[in-house]
């Protein structure tokens, strides 16, 4: 790729329709958050006090396992160590704070919706109930943004270098018959390790 496209960081390439969709979602998310008072918690209608006590990881685990399920012949969120990777992402200062908040705080919102509809938290739902609730969530702009963001980071966990915590032994690359480049980053020259 020689010509860089709109909204790409250096090097990335995407078809124009995707670029426009991504741009629209990004812009809309920023608009929504600003309209909600400037915080992701308010976007999801969460009270900050409640947000502080809430542990998002069990629900995030259940959501990512549903979005990328394990199958006999192909890895899912569990096999690609999606949670390990998301722990790296949510602690990474090079990921926008707003994005990290979105990843974590969407779970509490989902659990509240789950309680309202099924009187239990999301991880306790049946697969069919999970699917129905996520489909309902995806019909709202905030929910669509949240799930889209999770899918993006699941793709990263699946397809980026194992040194970042996901894709153990290149399991995602093997599944999709993808040939990675070399050399790959290892501890010591991963991007948080560089003398920037």
């Amino acid at each position, binding site marked *: 790729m020689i010509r860089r496209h709109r909204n790409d960081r250096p090097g990335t390439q995407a078809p124009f329709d995707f670029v426009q969709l991504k741009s629209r979602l990004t812009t809309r998310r920023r608009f929504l958050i600003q309209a909600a008072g400037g915080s992701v918690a308010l976007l999801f209608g969460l009270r900050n006090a409640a947000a502080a006590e809430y542990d998002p990881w069990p629900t995030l685990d259940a959501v990512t396992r549903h979005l990328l*399920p394990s199958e006999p012949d192909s890895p899912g969120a569990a096999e690609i160590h999606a949670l390990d990777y998301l722990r790296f992402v949510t602690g990474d200062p090079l990921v926008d704070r707003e994005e990290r908040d979105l990843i974590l705080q969407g779970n509490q919102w989902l659990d509240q919706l789950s309680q309202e509809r099924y009187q239990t938290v999301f991880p306790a739902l049946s697969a069919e109930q999970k699917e129905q609730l996520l489909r309902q969530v995806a019909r709202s702009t905030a929910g669509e943004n949240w799930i889209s963001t999770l899918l993006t980071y699941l793709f990263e966990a699946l397809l980026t270098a194992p040194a970042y915590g996901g894709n153990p032994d290149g399991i995602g690359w093997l599944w999709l018959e993808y040939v990675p480049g070399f050399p790959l980053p290892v501890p010591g020259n991963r991007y948080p390790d*560089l003398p920037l």
Partner: protein
Amino acid sequence: MSSDFDVCVIGSGAGGGPVAYSLASAGYSVVVLEKGPWLTESHFTKDELACCRRSVYTPALRDEQHVIEEPGADHGWNAEAGEQSGWNFWNGNCVGGSSNFMSGYFHRLKPVDFKLLSTFGPIDAANVIDWPIEYADLEPYYDKVERLIGVSGKAEPHTNAEPRSSADFPFPPTVEHPISQHIDQAAQALGFHALRVPRAILSQPAMQRRACEYSGFCGSFGCSSGAKGSSRAALLDHAVASGRCEVRPHSQVFRLETDAQGRIIAAAYYDKEARPRRVDARIYVVACQAIETSRLLLASIGPKFPGGLANNHGQVGRNLLFSAGGAGSGDMVFADHDAAESAALRVVGPFVNRALDDWYTIDDPRLGHAKGGIIEFLWDHPNAVTRAQNAKWRDGELVWGAPLKRRLETWFRTDRTLNFEVFNDWLPTDDCFVALDRGVNDRWGNAVARVRIGAHPHDQRVGRFLAAKGEQLLRRLGARRISSSVGPAPPPNLQAGGCRFGNAPENSVLDPDCRAHEVDNLFVSDGSFMPTGGSVPYTFTIYANSFRVADRIIDQLGGCPRTAG
């Protein structure tokens, strides 16, 4: 009066490197101020996160951004800051600049590029002028770049081949992909002439750099072997080794200070700890990439320059150029080929190295006698996450679960996408320029660049003409799902102009030597000098011109090396 250095170079990319290298080689003392860090081969890996998904080699947009003005309703302009839109106009802020991340497609300009106005005549609403130099003036420097940067290729007869002073390239072509032969055959069948593309990538070890290792990940990645001819690997490492060049990373220059006579007396910059510092030199060379070069001059007001350095004729920032054209693609479906061909299509590593250069000038019933361009063929960028991203949307709805996994399997396993990219001139107009924004500042509190990016409609007509040829070749190759897109949005990584050179201060910033008309110790050596950009990527020409400018600076400093070079 003594100075800290003979020459202060601001920016370490393809515009700055040749000046630093040449002046240090000639015995002069040089300081290079680079806003980014100093990374080397050991830091560069095939890491999609680092290269393309996090702001590792470029600033975070919340810290440093651009305000972009796009065409709006009723012939007005809509301005949006980069942090809001996500539109990133940074291309590599580290020692060596964006040359670290280039793909190294090294086409020379052609003689016609130096005289567009006199060859094709004026175009309404375009500020086309002839260059004040000719191809013959730049040719020796193209030759020099081929040797010093290391260009691999093979000079072959072609209708539009540029005149050369050397018989062939100094290094043989890089290893080529099996698809390249198919492109040759398809082109021949269509009556086109496929051109073997020279690359700024070493096919053999040389100049203390290793040869290409063919990982298949080149453009947008820093090179871990040193084969890619970045300004850092090919020039600055040698300049520093001479003992006469000091590179200062993390040095963000925010103003060039001038005295009452209008001469520059110091470069003021922030160091890594955001402390303001100064350095002085006899000559200052600005090479920050086009947008940031204009921004620095506009921000450098002084007693003789109330509207910005070298801007008393109001020319700085005007006639900014990008590269017009667009991109197209077609899928080479494995099932359409036998097992051997299918395996050949999957090969990762070797380069396609093919372009169509049959329409550099066009005679067409609708376009008339017009400047055309080139069509470059290349495999789809190998970034995996980027490829997967497309799979999560279907008809505007999110897909997940098993259906998403089946889509990923199809998208990754069943075909390979062959792209083409069209390059044609981005005409200079009054609607494409750099100014200082009055509301948005960078993290040091200085005004960011406000960039209007209006495109001339003629550019898109030429681009569509060329894209149709690219699609024709993909059809002949047997690709499926062929499409292309030519639009007015600029590629942010292909910047030039803004301080164009010329003979008249009334319509140019720089003289033919790239010295500012209004400031005799200021040179600009990046792509800013170009009045028209040609129809190829800019890096080769930026390198060549920077070597030419370096010779003029040596002349101005007295010519005689003070020590053996």
